[in-house]
């Protein structure tokens, strides 16, 4: 019950007028950011981060996390009404959400999406509440070797379970790790990979990279696609919401299954995007109305939405307790934590209980606020999408460019962000995942430090990563995940060979 009293303390922190005001502001900015093309949760958080330096950390994290919830919901809105995913994690929602809207069931689709999101978030945050202390306590036993193994697990999980081309994911990761080494080496003080350029001594800010890759790159990619935006007008009436709410028990199995998938993918760093796709796939596979999927099946909206939010919420726990973010947005928040002077990890739970439990308590309230706000403001935000993209794009671009400048009042950062924008555009066009690169940039230094400390402890002996059952299990699991794509394709080929004679 220790967690429960801590949670009550957290509610005391979160339930102040100031913090509730921040949640409302955060959610509204988040919905806007989620609806606008080119602005998503990761770079929305990156753009807002420099503005939080004057706040106490707990207020800052409440603002940023509320924005994240808003962005997740805003992303689903455009998926359903415009067939344009505002967030990569709401791509799966377009499969059935948009067909539903086209059949005149837009209000039902939106209510379904928001209510399942709310359910996913609730299950996610309850899970966090229950297991947070145990995970933190568990992590207290970690030595550098375990930390490195956990980072390795995070990287390998992206390659093995990310759902994208493993080789391209690996390239994205390795480029991110390389970028993280630029600048002054924390151990020896040597300048690495700067090639005599003073601008590179500080290293490359992950904020600049996120603004470029996710913001500018996304805008360029959207400009590239010719599809005309055809929106469906929708008003969500209270009666429609209530009618949908009554129907929700029909989807109990899908809800629980999707929440479980989402929480698992959030805790192990698969991320919300992979979670929503996996959940959609599983739902289609086990549904009795399988042929209806892709043509406006409500379960095809419920499943990805539930997982998306469950993963988004639970991704914050490994970020806090282990310093390993479960999604790109959590990675940006982790970077923020370090800028605010907080050291993520199990000690955070002992040194800063108000911060940790204030955040967890705020997640209960903010998600409720988010669902209510998004249901009432959908028509307003959807009208933003009626502004021609040609007009919208330069305005968002101006925000991204100004945001890149604000990171450290430096014009080099602006050009760097535009450069990252071009790279992000190419990566998007050629199906390279961007999240691993951001994750690697944030974690790179910590992973390297953990590795060097482990090597120092063992005098360069790699078997330290199997020196006890804990680190051994994590390392082995990581390598298994890394090998998974190869194993899976071998098994598939084997199965095909066996099946062939029967045909």
């Amino acid at each position, binding site marked *: 019950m220790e967690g429960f009293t801590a949670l009550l303390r957290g509610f005391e922190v979160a339930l102040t007028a100031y913090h509730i005001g921040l949640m409302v502001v955060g959610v509204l900015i988040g919905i806007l950011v989620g609806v606008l093309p080119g602005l998503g949760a990761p770079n929305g958080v990156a753009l807002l981060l*420099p*503005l939080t330096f*004057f706040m106490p950390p707990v207020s800052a994290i409440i603002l940023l996390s509320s924005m994240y919830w808003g962005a997740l919901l805003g992303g689903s809105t455009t998926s359903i009404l415009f067939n344009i995913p505002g967030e990569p994690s709401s791509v799966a929602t377009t499969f059935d959400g948009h067909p539903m809207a086209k059949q005149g069931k837009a209000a039902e689709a939106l209510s379904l999406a928001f209510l399942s999101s709310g359910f996913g978030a609730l299950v996610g945050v309850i899970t966090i509440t229950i297991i947070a202390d145990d995970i933190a306590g568990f992590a207290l036993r970690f030595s550098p070797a375990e930390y490195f193994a956990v980072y390795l697990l995070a990287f390998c999980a992206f390659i093995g379970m990310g759902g994208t081309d493993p*080789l*391209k994911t*690996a*390239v994205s990761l*390795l*480029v991110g*790790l*390389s970028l993280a*080494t630029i600048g002054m*080496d924390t*151990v*020896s003080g*040597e300048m*690495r*990979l700067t*090639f005599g350029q003073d601008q590179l001594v500080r290293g490359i800010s992950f904020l600049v990279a996120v603004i470029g890759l996710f913001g*500018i790159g996304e*805008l*360029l990619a959207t*400009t*590239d*696609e*010719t599809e005309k935006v055809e929106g469906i007008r929708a008003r969500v009436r209270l009666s429609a919401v209530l009618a949908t709410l009554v129907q929700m028990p029909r989807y109990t199995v899908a809800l629980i299954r999707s929440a479980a998938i989402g929480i698992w993918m959030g805790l192990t760093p698969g991320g919300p995007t992979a979670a929503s796709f996996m959940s959609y796939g599983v739902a289609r596979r086990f549904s009795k109305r399988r042929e209806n999927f892709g043509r406006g099946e409500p379960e095809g909206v419920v499943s990805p939405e539930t997982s998306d939010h469950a993963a988004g919420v639970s991704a914050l726990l490994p970020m806090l307790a282990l310093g390993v973010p479960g999604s790109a947005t959590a990675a940006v928040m982790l970077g923020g934590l370090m800028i605010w002077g907080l050291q993520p990890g199990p000690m955070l739970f002992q040194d800063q209980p108000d911060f940790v439990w204030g955040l967890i308590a705020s997640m209960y309230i903010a998600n409720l606020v988010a669902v209510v706000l998004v249901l009432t403001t959908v028509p307003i935000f959807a009208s933003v999408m009626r502004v*021609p993209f*040609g*007009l919208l*794009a*330069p*305005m968002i*671009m*101006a*925000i991204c*460019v*100004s945001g890149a*400048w*604000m990171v450290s*009042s430096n*014009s080099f950062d*602006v*050009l760097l*962000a*535009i450069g990252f*924008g*071009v790279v992000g*555009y*190419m*990566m998007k*066009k*050629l199906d*390279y995942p961007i999240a691993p690169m951001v994750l690697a940039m944030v974690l790179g230094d910590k992973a*390297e430090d953990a*590795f*060097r*400390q482990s*090597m*120092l402890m063992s005098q*360069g002996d790699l078997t330290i990563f199997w020196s006890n059952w804990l680190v051994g299990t994590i390392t082995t699991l990581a390598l298994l995940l890394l090998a998974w794509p190869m194993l899976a394709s071998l098994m598939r080929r084997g199965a095909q060979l066996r099946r062939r004679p029967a045909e």
Partner: protein
Amino acid sequence: MTGPDKGVRGRRVAEVGMALAAAIFGAVVVFGALQHDVGWGPTGPGAGYFPLRIGLLLIGVASLLMLRQILAGVPDRFSEAGALRRVAALLVPTLIFGAAMAPLGAYLPMLLYLLWMARRTARAGWAVSLLVAIAMPVGLFLMFEVWLGVPLAKGPLEEALGIY
């Protein structure tokens, strides 16, 4: 190999080019790492130890990707006709805007950039264009400088107007 439509080879060229760029970046990382201690120093692995291995891995993975594309790449378009021109129409003015920020401050280039984009790319009327081009910098100024106290880039215009 030149079929009726040369565009279908675009994707493959881009794929190989991207993998090649990654491999070259890996080589730069290896080169940079080699300027440091890549073995053991008094504080454990030297400064170049980790980057060297990351760079080598990157070269390896990118070469595999490149090889796969050359051997088994499927002809496909990189983008629809005219798309790259639209991208350039957004990218080039943005680049000029970004480069102009340091000498001229954020606000004047932003105004001109938005005006140009609204008139030339979005083909909006003068009223809408001017509204967007003026409202946006003013809005950002009020939000960042007045409300939040975070300064944006300043240039000679801001100096002349006395806003600092």
